[in-house]
């Protein structure tokens, strides 16, 4: 019998598809808005830590879907060519395919990353860094959705841990594309809990920051559960 558990799938189709999904997630999260240009193929392959061949296969898949268009020549490269309505449609489709297991698993992991990231940020950020975070926090009310997502990343980056920051990036990339279907009320509530978290880092109050991070993620999970109950009430998973 195979010892399966240490060897989770990382190759072939799975990898191409997950790279393509990751780029789609960045588009839906607003980090790569329609009309924006993707980094060069070499740079993207390096960022993902994959071979150029795998990246090209993923880009080919996105071209086939019409998600991106690739231009040749000196000013060539790939440009995001989705319609603005696609972002909401994809969020709805993802909610239909999503189940409570993945929402809870992702929520548990995000809570662990953000709580420890925030605690370390409060303990390690310099006064000038905390001042910049305070300014960002003050602007949160009128910030764009991508800026709101970046605030999470800014907080965890202050922990001075690259691995925690990368893990947080993965969490918000997954989340960002779903949050586009929020009501204004839900958006305001999430920004309020994020601002409370940021203020604990600014203070600095490490233990309170960790607790505020857990509360913030719990609020997001509750919103996701509401969406799942509503979406799955009338629609079977595809």
């Amino acid at each position: 019998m195979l010892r399966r558990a240490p060897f989770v799938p990382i190759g072939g189709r799975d990898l191409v598809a997950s790279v393509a999904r990751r780029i789609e997630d960045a588009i839906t999260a607003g980090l790569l808005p329609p009309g924006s240009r993707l980094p060069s193929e070499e740079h993207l392959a390096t960022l993902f830590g994959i071979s150029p061949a795998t990246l090209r296969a993923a880009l080919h898949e996105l071209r086939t879907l019409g998600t991106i268009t690739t231009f040749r020549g000196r000013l060539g490269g790939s440009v995001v060519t989705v319609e603005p309505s696609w972002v909401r449609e994809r969020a709805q489709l993802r909610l239909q395919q999503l189940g409570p297991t993945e929402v809870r698993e992702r929520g548990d992991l995000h809570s662990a990353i953000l709580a420890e990231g925030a605690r370390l940020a409060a303990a390690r950020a310099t006064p000038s860094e905390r001042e910049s975070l305070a300014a960002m926090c003050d602007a949160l009310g009128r910030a764009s959705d991508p800026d709101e997502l970046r605030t999470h990343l800014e907080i965890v980056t202050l922990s001075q841990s690259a691995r925690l920051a990368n893990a947080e990036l993965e969490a918000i990339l997954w989340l960002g594309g779903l949050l586009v279907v929020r009501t204004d009320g839900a958006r305001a509530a999430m920004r309020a809990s994020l601002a409370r978290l940021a203020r604990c880092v600014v203070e600095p109050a490490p233990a309170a920051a960790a607790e505020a991070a857990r509360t913030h993620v719990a609020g997001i999970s509750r919103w996701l559960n509401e969406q799942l109950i509503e979406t799955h009430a009338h629609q079977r998973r595809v």
Partner: protein
Amino acid sequence: MEHDRLAEIAARIAHTVATIDALLGSLLAAASDPLEVEAITRAALERPDHLVLGAGVIRAGSRPSLSWWWRRSGEPEPLTVALEPNSLVFYDVEHRPWFLEPWRTGTLSVVGPYLDRSGTDTMVVTLTRPLPGEPPGIVGADLALDAIFDVLVAEPAARDLGAILENSEGRIIASANPRFTMGELDRGPWRAVVTCEQLPWRLVVREAVGEAETAE
């Protein structure tokens, strides 16, 4: 009134789970024929409600054997686990509750939800019945909690009431209340409780205790 609405949902859930016990009956009858086991299992994995995550026959003894199929993502595939005791992720068949329980009671056992670490690596509910013979074994099926969630939230009353389906110890199987979710431990207090017939499960509605009400 609330109690009656919960009882109706509980009856429908018990009825759905009874179809899984029927599957175990077919597996018991076919246990000695690997091809027949595979055919029955594949048919179960293709149920339109996606309730069955995996199913099959497991025998213990000095050289345990699995005839177990599951769908990791889409297509049915055989489940492979580490059966060597010195492996870090050793899958100790004989000492798992879903193996011990049916042999202790001699009948249907419903274990979980639990994290099936080193097996399917996801939270499942496992239904098993003892399979007599040498070496002794079990026939069983893993239920997907996401599919049970779909069954629950399809009930308008479950959504209205924020009903929570949990096992007799309070571990949540599926929740139509967004403040709670699968895998959490529900300690009450409850406004209404109805037990599911033939199952160690209950359907509850929480007593509302304000904004901060969550399991954790």
